[in-house]
């Protein structure tokens, strides 16, 4: 299975994400934001955390207009997998690949700590290695993670079982305690917490491994 990890100017979790994919058995290639195409045969694109383009205008807004973003959109339109973490989640909402927006944290402070997440659905190729309701420990590090969506959109996410993770204790004011959401076809996941930072017990938690293992298994079956 092949993974591509995108780097924008200001990305800072790109290497960690590449390492996490590789540890799960993916063949990983790194791509630059000015590339017009993804490498041949890519199964999943990782859009990493960081501060792409300095968070200018709005977090993820400039990155969403990059040449590589058009290629990511085509990949998603063809049914390809996309994983956006933290700033990557913001990029995917700005691209319109995922609904809603990530606003400034309700407490206005940058929140950087390991939090408890609940797996809200195991019915996706990103979460199948977890049990529904399972609690996992994953770090968050963001200033704009306050997930906001209109009432109709929220009802739709709930009705279609598209909320992937929720916070056990909400750190940022996000609606419905939402930490991560899935696309309609369940192949695009955006989440604020960093599973790639939780893949080694020595780093405090290895609970993030399940996500990469789920993907590997899901793709092998697909």
């Amino acid at each position, binding site marked *: 299975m092949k993974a591509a990890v995108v780097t924008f100017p200001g990305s800072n979790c790109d290497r960690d994400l590449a390492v996490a994919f590789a540890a799960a058995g993916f063949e990983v290639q790194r791509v630059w934001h000015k590339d017009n195409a993804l490498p041949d045969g890519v199964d999943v694109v990782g859009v990493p955390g960081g501060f792409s383009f300095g968070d200018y205008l709005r977090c993820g807004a400039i990155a969403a207009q990059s040449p590589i973003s058009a290629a990511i959109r085509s990949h998603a339109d063809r049914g390809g997998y996309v994983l956006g973490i933290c700033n990557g989640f913001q990029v995917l909402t700005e691209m319109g690949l995922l609904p809603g*927006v990530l606003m*400034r944290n309700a407490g206005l402070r940058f929140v950087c700590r390991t939090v408890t997440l609940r797996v809200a659905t195991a019915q996706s190729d990103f979460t199948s290695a977890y049990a529904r309701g399972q609690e996992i420990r994953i770090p968050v590090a963001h200033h704009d993670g306050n997930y906001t969506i209109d009432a109709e959109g929220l009802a739709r996410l709930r009705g279609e079982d598209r909320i992937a993770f929720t916070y056990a204790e909400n750190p940022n004011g996000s609606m419905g305690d939402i930490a991560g959401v899935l696309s309609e076809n369940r192949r695009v996941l955006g989440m604020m917490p960093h599973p790639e930072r939780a893949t080694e017990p020595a780093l405090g938690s290895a609970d993030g491994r399940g996500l990469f293992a789920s993907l590997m298994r899901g793709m092998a079956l697909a």
Partner: protein
Amino acid sequence: MKARVTVMLKSGVLDPQGEAIRHALGSLGFAGVTGVRQGKVIELDLAETDPAQAETAVRAMCERLLANTVIESYRVELV
């Protein structure tokens, strides 16, 4: 021609930064500020000289990039 774009959060969208400013004004002794909304102003220098064409172009820029219309509204002024 210059255009000035004002981007604001839509009414009904909670503005935590505006609220923080309101609290800060209160603690400085400025009484009676019942609401604060924070937005942004973007000024554009345009080569276009026709106002109607300019406005159409700037509105397209707002829809594509300058505003996130999920939560933000925008106003275009030609100056």
